[in-house]
């Protein structure tokens, strides 16, 4: 288990290194000078020169890459040109919106998908199975921004249970914060839950037809017990893979939902930075998201080994 974990950790470090090089090179090969690009075509020569100096663009590429990388390691992500404030402060404010949002959405999606997938699989071909699968088909098909607007229409505008958008900040209390994240989390979670439920169902059905489930039944386990004790854990591997992917998506890909609900999250930050050509912010936030995704996959890999002893290798 230790060997396996170390191996996965090594692969995590290598992924991060490769990602940092790719991100740096991509920003570098954007045609033209970053400073000119950021200031637009009407900028004065001396303004550009000043910005170049400020951005450290006069140093060699290798030196700049190293400065960027070593800066990030100690939490210094540079200074945003447009916001005129350190990037780590910008990120620090927003991550406390994005991370809870992703976590709530993930919990919600898992909590919905697991029982649905299990019920559908254990009653394969029944009316319950077919209606649940029909509903998830719908869930997969509906775009989440449209679903978000429907939620706003019903729960914010008509019922007035929630605000239609914005985030009061955690200073206003945990409840107020959670309340503001409820609708966005549902909008994010439901389509993902539909996908996850379908994966859960298929994976469980595959496992239920395995020989060892029949063996368990021959021991005297009821259908339900055989499913719970033997099939479920074996069915989890593909489900965990999807959960890992979904968490990454919800953290990094919540741009649209954050825009619909006017949430000051990472998605909106990166969206605004791109439109304002604030390359330093873009570079750093993308790196941070890569870090989050790689880290999540690392944990998914560790969970695989917890679930399946065959991956742990010899003790």
């Amino acid at each position, binding site marked *: 288990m230790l060997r396996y974990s170390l191996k996965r950790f090594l692969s995590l470090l290598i992924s991060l290194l490769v990602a940092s090089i790719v991100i740096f090179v991509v920003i570098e090969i954007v045609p033209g000078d970053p400073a000119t690009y950021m200031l637009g075509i009407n900028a004065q020569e001396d303004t550009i020169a000043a910005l170049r100096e400020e951005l450290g663009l006069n140093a060699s590429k290798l030196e700049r890459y190293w400065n960027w990388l070593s800066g990030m390691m100690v939490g210094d992500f540079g200074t945003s040109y447009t916001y005129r404030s350190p990037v780590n402060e910008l990120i620090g404010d927003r991550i406390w919106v994005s991370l809870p949002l992703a976590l709530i959405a993930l919990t919600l999606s898992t909590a919905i998908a697991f029982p649905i997938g299990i019920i559908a699989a254990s009653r394969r071909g029944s009316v319950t199975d077919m209606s649940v699968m029909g509903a998830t088909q719908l869930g997969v098909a509906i775009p989440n921004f449209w679903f978000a607007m429907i939620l706003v229409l019903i729960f914010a505008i008509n019922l007035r249970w929630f605000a239609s958008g914005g985030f009061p900040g955690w200073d206003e209390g945990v409840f107020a914060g959670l309340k503001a994240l409820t609708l966005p989390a549902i909008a994010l979670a439901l389509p993902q839950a539909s996908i996850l439920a379908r994966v859960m169902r298929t994976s469980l059905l595959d496992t239920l037809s395995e020989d*060892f489930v029949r063996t368990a*039944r*021959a*021991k*005297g386990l009821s259908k339900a017990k055989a499913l719970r004790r033997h099939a479920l854990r*074996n069915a989890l591997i593909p489900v965990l893979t999807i959960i890992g992917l979904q968490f990454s998506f919800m953290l990094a890909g919540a741009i649209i939902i954050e825009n619909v609900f006017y949430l000051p999250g990472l998605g909106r930050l990166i969206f605004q930075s791109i439109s304002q050509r604030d390359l330093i912010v873009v570079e750093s936030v993308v790196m941070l998201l890569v870090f989050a995704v790689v880290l999540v996959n690392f944990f998914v890999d560790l969970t695989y080994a917890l679930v*399946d*002893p065959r991956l742990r290798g010899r003790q």
Partner: protein
Amino acid sequence: MALLSIENLNLSIHGIDILRDVSMSVEAGKVLGVIGESGSGKSMTANAVMQLLPNGTDCSGTILLEGQNLLDLHEGQMNRLRGKDIGMVFQEPMTALNPVKTIGAQVAETLLIHKAASKPEALRIARETLNRVGLPEDRFPMSRYPHELSGGQRQRVVIAMAIALKPKLLIADEPTTALDVTTQAQILRLLKRLIQEDDMGLILITHDLAVVSDMADDMVIMQNGVVVEQGPAATLYRDMQHPYTKALFEASSHIPDRDYADERGADPLLEVRNVIRDYTLPRTKLFAAPGYFRAVNDVSFVINRGESLGLVGESGCGKSTLTRALLGLEPVQSGDILFDGDPVVKNGLVVPDIRRKMQVVFQDPYGSFNPRHKVSRLITEPYHLLPSSPTGADRDRAIAEALESVDMPASAAEKYIHEFSGGQRQRIAIARALIIRPELIILDEAVSALDVSVRAQVLDLLSDLSDRFGLTYLFISHDLSVVRAITDRVLVMKSGKVVERGATEDVFENPQHAYTKTLIDAAPQLPDVA
């Protein structure tokens, strides 16, 4: 009163009759052998006793276990009965255990499910049961996972699970079919010992008459869902009545009519000289050199033109690795493989001109065809080895000839592979090998997955083809009786080495190496009924 008696059992699935009027019974402490080919309904009978049946199944008749009709019980009552009064062992030990639970937990579960013991007590009994089935504590702690055990060891775990609660009846459905002969002999001995110790009744289901002949007190022969003959094993062998029983018996000991090679003189076709094949093992330490496993260790032999050479050995002995090396599918670390005097592999590449003279037929008639292609395309696959392959009418003629030579109609070319039975598929596989007129055909367990009667037909076909086209065979199998029936000379392989070689009859009649003796002793024998 019999322990279990099945009376007039009828079973249909979605209206299709599977079993008709099946009756049989087994006494405590006795073994009932149920014999039949695939589709005979033997497994379905076992599943009916366990009431583990697919949806849409209709059952009528009676299945009495100590006087209680199991068909009257509802699901909850059956759950309490399964594992406690009836234990079951299945065919595939590799997949019959839950890969994510320890063997101790899986055996203890039988006791816990039936609330027969507290958790520590259940673990203690599980330990004892594992000892009983030959998995001692020092080598097989309960914390082992199934993937750390071999097939035979896993089957012992499955048996331990089935007998942990000392059931009255044990059902074993092809318990040794997937195992090597020596392992098979051990498992059969174990089953026999256990039923004597616990006074259990055993229903032993198998397609292999020889397996039952050593074990069974009574026998039931099934065909197409009907019991065609039954009776005490001792008399039934001597006094077979039903033509199907006789046919089955004949097919099991079938020896095809063939010309023997020694009449043809020695003309080496394939020469294998000192071949070594190593596999690199995963590194155990980051900077240590990786270890290697020698799968084929200094093997040399010659196949003469027109000869049929057998290669026997148990799983892991290196026979499949050797096959792949012969075909140039894997590089060898040292040694030469010469076909008609020319190396099969030159500069790391297989020479197509030589390779086309060697074809192979594999074991699995279900997995070795692409289901999306028509037979015409499947059997012309070897054409890629030819510099210019026939087209148009020539191609059609070649396809028809190949199919007809294996006794299939030419019209089969336009069908898909799922439309054929296992035996027909194996014929098509042979047609695929024949189509480019090879000189040597490697038959890698080519008849192992077939029913005995079909196997006998395919063996006849092979010997007929060999006589007609002057084919040379390398016949690889773990089944000694088949090798004995169709080969002139035989090699016995163990742990990558050839431990014995010689004329087939000599080796079988008078084995020299201890391992060969073990193999021959372990192989179940049909009683003589001359």
